[in-house]
């Protein structure tokens, strides 16, 4: 017993958690509330990016509507906490209920993921890309038209439950679970599909089953992330989940490295901070006048910058930050 060692990943998570807690406004206040929100957003995007990486990077499929599942998670969990249970973030005993609602939101997203994934993944070809692209738009239209959840105004008054420790816990568990998945026989089956689908089938892998499994698990975690985001922003709005936000998550996966969970974690942080930086930067740009018309560059230009970034990544076939490598923190040692 004497030589018990804290697993590296747990240690890394704890160190990050403690440092942020010490710097947070509640303790030393070195980080202001605005900074904390960016860190919290980054952690939510960690969940989104690694769960999309499971689908696109590890199983080798191509999903374009990841935020659609976040929408399902946000609206389902938001409906439970705000309309049905009327939970209050100042009551400590409501937190476990809140966490169950988040998981229910994830399960809702997983069910939708199955309904979309099963028919399109059975077919050979790029049906998944087309279907998921349409799905993102369909879900927006549906949400716009359901008055019960606010219609085009969005679902307002969602209680502010997504405190840093809670988001940290969910993000950490997602990383652990997906790491364990990849380093198991089920994960190896998924990886083999990416590597060579025919050979995978001829190693006895039920490729349709594993593609659907990867997709549904990815949708589940996207739903979790969507729920956390809604309870951080205290609202869920149909426009938050369209194609552009999905593209941002996709860029994170590419920029981090397809198939590398480590890369997705790093890219989620980098690009969330960059997005904020660009937003502040563009906002600060002066208005300019051409031919007596005044122009102001809007923050929607951040997406243009990202689109260019994505094209550059594809053009130069860069492998992203990590390629397919993992940090040692995310590898379960095997004796050699």
């Amino acid at each position, binding site marked *: 017993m004497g030589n018990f060692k804290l697993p590296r990943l747990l240690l890394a998570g704890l160190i990050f958690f403690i440092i942020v807690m010490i710097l947070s406004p509640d303790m030393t206040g070195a980080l202001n509330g605005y900074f904390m929100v960016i860190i919290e957003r980054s952690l939510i995007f960690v969940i989104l990016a690694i769960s999309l990486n499971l689908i696109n990077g590890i199983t080798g499929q191509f999903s374009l509507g990841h935020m659609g599942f976040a929408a399902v998670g946000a609206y389902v969990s938001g409906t439970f906490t705000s309309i049905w249970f009327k939970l209050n973030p100042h009551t400590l005993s409501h937190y476990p209920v809140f966490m169950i609602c988040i998981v229910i939101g994830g399960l809702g997203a997983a069910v939708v993921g199955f309904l979309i994934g099963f028919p399109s993944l059975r077919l050979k070809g790029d049906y998944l890309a087309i279907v998921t692209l349409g799905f993102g738009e369909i879900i927006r239209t549906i949400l716009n038209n359901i008055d019960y959840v606010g219609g085009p105004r969005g679902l307002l008054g969602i209680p502010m439950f997504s405190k840093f420790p809670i988001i940290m816990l969910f993000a950490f568990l997602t990383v652990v679970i997906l790491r364990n998945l990849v380093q198991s*026989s089920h994960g*190896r089956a998924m990886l083999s599909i990416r590597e*060579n689908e025919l*050979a995978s089938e*001829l*190693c*006895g892998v039920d490729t349709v089953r594993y593609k659907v*499994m990867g997709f549904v698990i990815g949708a589940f975690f996207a739903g979790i992330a969507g729920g956390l985001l809604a309870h951080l922003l205290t609202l869920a709005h149909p426009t938050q989940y369209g194609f552009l936000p999905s593209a941002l998550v996709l860029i994170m996966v590419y920029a981090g490295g397809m198939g590398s969970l480590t890369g997705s974690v790093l890219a989620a942080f980098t690009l969330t901070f960059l997005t904020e930086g660009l937003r502040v930067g563009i906002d600060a740009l002066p208005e300019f006048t051409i031919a007596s018309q005044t122009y102001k560059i809007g923050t929607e230009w951040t997406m243009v910058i990202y689109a260019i970034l994505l094209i550059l990544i594809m053009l130069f076939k860069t492998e992203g930050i990590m390629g*397919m490598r993992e940090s040692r923190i995310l590898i379960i040692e095997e004796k050699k």
Partner: protein
Amino acid sequence: MSALLSIQGMSHYFGGLKAVSNFTFDVPEGVIYGLIGPNGSGKTTTFNLITGIYTPTEGKVLFEGRDITGQKPFRIVQGGVARTFQNLRIFGNLSVIDNIRVARHFTVKSGLFTSLLRLPSFKQEEEVVREEAMQLIKMMHLEDRAFDQAKNLPYGALRRLEIARALATKPKLVLLDEPAAGMNPKETDDLMGLIRQVRDDFKVTVFLIEHHMKLVMNVCERVKVIDFGETIA
């Protein structure tokens, strides 16, 4: 009735091209069986038909007396038929040992949740899988490269890795599609020894395709010759 694999009146067309014409033959259990014929004579197509990649236009495939015609490839593999490919299909970004472990995954009992939580039963089973994979790696003389990415291995080693991967599915019948393709004479000689060893150690039936007469004549106990989709001998 002792035929492990029985092909009955099997034909296959690609559009108007008749790639396989009315094949009928039995592969008895325990032999090393050879199918030879020039390029384009329908050998690989025959393997694709047996393993379910294509469904024959006409005829049947029986394995252990069961009709497996038209079944999905993964079911046929799980039923005991494994194969290698003429043009290597390696999982290049995975390690050598993981290439082999993929082929072992459907015999693993640990469910998704047991695996995600890394429960003790999962770890025990992983240990068994690992041991067995290591044995195959040693048999194929790949132990120095066990944890390297497969794509970095030399060509001859990749051919052996594909055979190891096929054996990891615990097959009764192994189909080898031109196993000596691209090998030099020394490597080909070693390969012949290896094929015999595989048959003897794993008690499997070997069915191989070649267009090199020498290998087939040396190692095969039964030989069938085809040309342009037609049976010659």
